[in-house]
């Protein structure tokens, strides 16, 4: 659609940068850094899932870590039992999606308010944390996969080429897959937001009552957004379990849930690239802080969040976008081109 040309330019730019990184980055950085970057990418997929449901669907989910953890555990348990990773990979997306659909149905069709939404999703995450945490004994196992309690599941078999269990993924392949899937998720969500359904989703976030008066059923659209967010978080969980060949209940923890929200706030709500930028930046910063003993990393992260909320409330990406727009307006000649159609949704989708 011509109206979204401006939006698609920024999307194409982001995708092009992603593809260039996919091609060139493995050739210019060492393996250790590549593995480090891979976890940034895996977590970026998780960040995008919350960025989508919160920034575009208006659903503030405090428990995105629940779907992330479910994805990781589903993959770990099923791959230990099956050997070949093809079905476990799919299950790690489907199971969190179904869980999100069930939870979303209760929340949205039960007409629970936003406050309860936050409370329920947070509680569910903590319940899962405690549940998995208390599965330490040898009796706690699904098939051949012991759940391991607080120690988690170690030595998770890596992803393999579909149908060929002997051809496992390498660290380099893991980087390619993570970045490739991040690009696919980003492009897919951008396409969705620009579609008819995407417009309705944003409209419901803007004014649910007006959307209802026009005949749209917000419950159905929110359920769809929430389920899709759960599926993407599950995918991130699967990648996480593969990255370290390990998963533990801490991924269901409060700290994990809070971190995802911080990534989105710092990067910028209402954009898809913002959560990626926020996630990479904060994770890189956490790693850097971890190399010294002077400051506690949680203290620094807390201070960053407070500073961003107070000084850059829109987040990095929207603020940079606004700055560039202002600079562009200053340098542009007076008058308006009839082809230039800056629209609200396009602005919302920039980057």
């Amino acid at each position, binding site marked *: 659609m011509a109206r979204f040309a401006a939006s698609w330019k920024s999307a194409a730019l982001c995708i092009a940068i992603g593809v260039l990184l996919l091609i060139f980055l493995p050739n210019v950085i060492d393996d250790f850094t590549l593995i480090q970057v891979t976890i940034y990418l895996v977590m970026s997929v998780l960040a995008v899932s919350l960025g989508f449901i919160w920034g575009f669907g208006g659903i503030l989910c405090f428990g995105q870590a629940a779907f992330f953890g479910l994805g990781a555990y589903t993959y770990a348990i099923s791959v230990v039992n099956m050997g070949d990773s093809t079905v476990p990979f799919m299950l790690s997306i489907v199971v969190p999606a179904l869980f999100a659909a069930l939870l979303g149905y209760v929340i949205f069709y039960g007409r629970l308010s936003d406050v309860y939404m936050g409370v329920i999703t947070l509680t569910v995450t903590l319940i899962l944390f405690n549940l998995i945490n208390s599965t330490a004994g040898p009796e706690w196992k699904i098939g051949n996969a012991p759940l391991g309690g607080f120690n988690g599941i170690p030595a998770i078999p890596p992803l393999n080429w579909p149908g060929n269990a002997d051809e496992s993924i390498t660290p380099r392949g893991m980087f390619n897959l993570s970045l490739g899937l991040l690009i696919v998720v980003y492009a897919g969500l951008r396409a969705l937001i620009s579609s008819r359904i995407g417009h309705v989703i944003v409209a419901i976030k803007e004014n649910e009552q*007006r959307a*209802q008066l*026009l005949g749209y059923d917000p419950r159905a659209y929110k359920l769809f957004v929430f389920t899709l967010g759960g599926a993407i978080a599950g995918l991130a969980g699967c990648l996480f379990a593969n990255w370290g060949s390990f998963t533990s209940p801490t991924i269901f923890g409060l700290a994990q849930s809070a971190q995802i929200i911080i990534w989105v706030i710092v990067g910028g709500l209402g954009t898809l690239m913002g959560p990626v930028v926020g996630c990479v930046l904060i994770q890189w910063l956490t790693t850097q802080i971890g190399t010294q003993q002077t400051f506690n990393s949680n203290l620094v992260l807390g201070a960053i969040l407070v500073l961003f909320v107070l000084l850059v409330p829109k987040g990095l990406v929207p603020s940079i976008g606004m700055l560039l727009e202002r600079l562009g307006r200053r340098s542009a000649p007076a008058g308006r081109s009839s082809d230039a159609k800056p629209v609200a949704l396009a602005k919302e989708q920039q980057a």
Partner: protein
Amino acid sequence: MTAAGVTGVTPLIETRALNVRFGGVHATRDVNFSLAEAELRCVIGPNGAGKSTFFKLLTGQVKPTSGQILFRGKDISRMQPHEPGRMGIGIKTQVPSLFNGLSVWENVWLSAQRVNLPQRAKDVTRTTLERVGMLAESEAITGTLAHGQRQWVELAVVLAADPPLILLDEPAAGMSDAEVARTAELILEINRQHALVVVEHDMSFIRMIAKKVTVLHQGQVIREDTPDRIMADPLVQQIYLGKKPH
């Protein structure tokens, strides 16, 4: 007796003994209301008379405690809040209810595209914005517009879905004299194809558009007649206009 019973024609919308209670407040009492296809009805009443609640009932935003709402003979009183809109009841609320972060075009398009195929939705959006004189503002962010302009945008949003019944809650509120006259003209034009229920306080505006007026007081329908008779009615003068009967 219902309108259907009198004329043998099913009314466009009809309420039967409609009641709503909010805790101890009886907001709507046994309201029997009937509107024919393509009819224009004005509803008046002092503040707290139950006008807004009545509109919320018709649009599914509030569920009645008892009674029925029939739209073309079908009971809609227990439907989900989005279903009356889907069936063809459009409403322009008192304080414009719009997608403030979206452009004027997007607001109207969202309404048009629910009932039209993509290309047709674009055409409908353009013609509707032209009709209310807002095409030039189609790229503006709705939240940045002046109140009067937002009223026009909301009217365009309602019209774009082409609903058989349009409810207008104080459409002339906050408008200049020229805009009021333009609004009256537009309402009469809309009435050629759509039935309308208009809640309004401005009696001069009501005289411009109404053939029949319903008076609500304390949640009850107390009179239903032509504007002139309503204005001359001592009870209406007493409770609505604040005049004591001679």
